[in-house]
């Protein structure tokens, strides 16, 4: 069972502001039945442009309902400019946190609010929709980019937790990775540009640590999924000596795995001059 906070349980079991505001000034809808969750937000402004009334209707799991309920409470009395600043992380924080697999519920809240505000401003198609990346859940590159930036996402799995993209057939994982890489480098250029130039060369010890860490976190899990395994034997300058285990050791494609996957990953993540060789027992 999910580890929901008391606040999530409370907003799920006693949801605030369920329903539909009549003659709404703003209407925002996201999600679909096929996706497994959907949210319809309606709000009305008062004379001074503050949200006087806001209601939701949600089809979805406990955390989807709780996120919707929380959002309506959070924005009541706010101007649209203030409301538009709310991020999905704010919604999750308000609820005392959400399980990471459920973060997409908070993203849905933020998106519906964005759409409702755009509707009010007469901007029926808010921001360019982008191109579809995940067919299964109808998620575009723009939506993924935004979630990556706002939540500092690093892996495809995290993108799935936050946006659902990639949670179905899995065919778009490469595209998601490409978006991650793109956003990642853009951020690096922005944030790290002055530093990268001056970055000192890795010491051997740092390099070994990084290689161990990368093997452990990035490479082993994916080999193990196919019944294989890998072990770091030694690092000699730029030469990384490893031993393949399990089905990998007898697999005809071992060289492909080694050069095409392991070496590429290590070069990409640590240093481009690394060379991976297999030691045979």
């Amino acid at each position: 069972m999910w580890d929901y906070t008391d606040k999530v349980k409370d907003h799920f079991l006693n949801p605030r502001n369920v329903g539909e505001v009549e003659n709404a000034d703003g209407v925002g809808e996201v999600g679909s039945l096929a996706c497994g969750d959907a949210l319809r937000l309606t709000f009305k402004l008062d004379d001074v442009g503050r949200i006087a009334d806001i209601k939701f209707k949600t089809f979805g799991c406990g955390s989807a309902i709780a996120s919707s309920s929380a959002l309506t409470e959070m924005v009541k009395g706010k101007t649209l400019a203030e409301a538009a600043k709310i991020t999905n992380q704010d919604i999750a924080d308000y609820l005392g946190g959400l399980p990471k697999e459920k973060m997409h519920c908070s993203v849905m809240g933020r998106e519906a609010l964005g759409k409702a505000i755009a509707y009010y401003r007469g901007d029926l198609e808010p921001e360019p929709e982008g191109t579809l990346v995940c067919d299964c859940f109808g998620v575009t590159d723009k939506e993924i980019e935004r979630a990556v930036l706002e939540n500092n996402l690093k892996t495809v799995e995290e993108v799935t937790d936050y946006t659902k993209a990639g949670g179905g057939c899995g065919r778009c994982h490469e595209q998601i990775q490409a978006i991650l890489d793109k956003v990642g480098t853009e951020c690096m250029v922005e944030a790290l540009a002055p530093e990268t130039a001056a970055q000192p060369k890795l010491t051997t010890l740092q390099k070994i640590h990084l290689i161990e860490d990368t093997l452990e976190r990035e490479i082993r899990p994916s080999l193990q999924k196919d019944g294989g395994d890998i072990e770091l034997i030694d690092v000699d300058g730029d030469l990384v000596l490893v031993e393949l285990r399990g089905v990998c050791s007898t697999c005809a494609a071992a060289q492909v795995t080694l050069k095409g996957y392991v070496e590429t990953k290590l070069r990409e993540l640590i240093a481009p001059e690394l060379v991976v060789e297999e030691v045979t027992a």
Partner: protein
Amino acid sequence: MIYLDNNATTAVAPEVLEEMLPFLKEQYANPSGMYTFAAEVGRKVGEARERVAALLGAHPDEIVFTSCGTESDNTALRAAVWSNPDRLGVVTTRVEHPAVKNLCEHLEHVGHPVSFLPVDGAGRLDLVQVRAAMTRSVAVSSVMWANNETGTVFPVAEIGALAHEAGVVFHTDAVQVVGKIPIDLAGLPIDMLSLSGHKLHAPKGIGALYVRKGSKFSSFLIGGHQERGRRGGTENVPAIVALGKACEIAADSIERERSRVRRLRDRLESALLERIPNARVNGDVENRLPNTTNIAFEFVEGEAILLMLNEEGICASSGSACTSGSLEPSHVLRAMGVPFTAAHGSVRFSFSAYNTDADVDRVIAVLPGIIARLREMSPFWAEQTCKMPA
């Protein structure tokens, strides 16, 4: 608490617990020992083997104890593949438990051509397709006896016969069947059968594999001489004794309990369908386990239903995406083509001999209100009711 999730696991029967306790306390000998202390334990393991065999209509030598249903499935399929190296193919269905499904996907990954047979909207296989899939290049076929999510029962006698016509080994995952409907393997074309203790009131972590006499076999857990060399590892004596007792109880009570449980299930099902609009049963209602009902409540989401049932102290499960941590509804419902409007809101109630009429009454009393409340909140429900004629 009202426990209606017996296809997930069951309570250990008090008689079973009592029977196993001495083997967790004073009777701790390793059955391989050369002393009376061990011989007594060994005798009890033998008795358990007889009891399991009796429930299945098998010979005790045909029973191999394992650590769980999953190990039984792995042992069966790997044994069949390894001992028939001249055939590569594997035949199975799209609705197997992950213990078989993921194993077959793995076998496919390492070079075995696997046919995953489709099912129709009621979860049934097409025997013409089954026959066509069973060719001389297939080593093993594995079709579950009954599906854990919907309770749909497959015609394993016919499927086994089709397998044998092509010289294909036939394995069935009977984890959901053993203890629920009578089985007599003597007359059936089944080469291997998996069962799991915790589905019939024995503890978790004990299973068995039936291997028909004369079948080619190869161990999955290679080690000592235990289980006549078919499964290494010192026997889990308390759990084996428990499984034996659970099988003995099942053999005695199966006829009586199955009609009682069926009546409870049917009463719940018809009352819910009557009181809740836009609800439908998933699965083959003609051929179904007596204890299982899987009902789709349209336009609401399964996890939300379960959380509200939980507030009422009722335990059930769902094929909805949100409950599993995956984002798509269960592979079984998708294979059946259950529309998304319904798949996300599917709830499974599964009974055991410990359920009562009072349990059923309670669910009937609270569930219609829960569904109505969630539909009130659902943006699709209003649309739906508007479309419907008054």
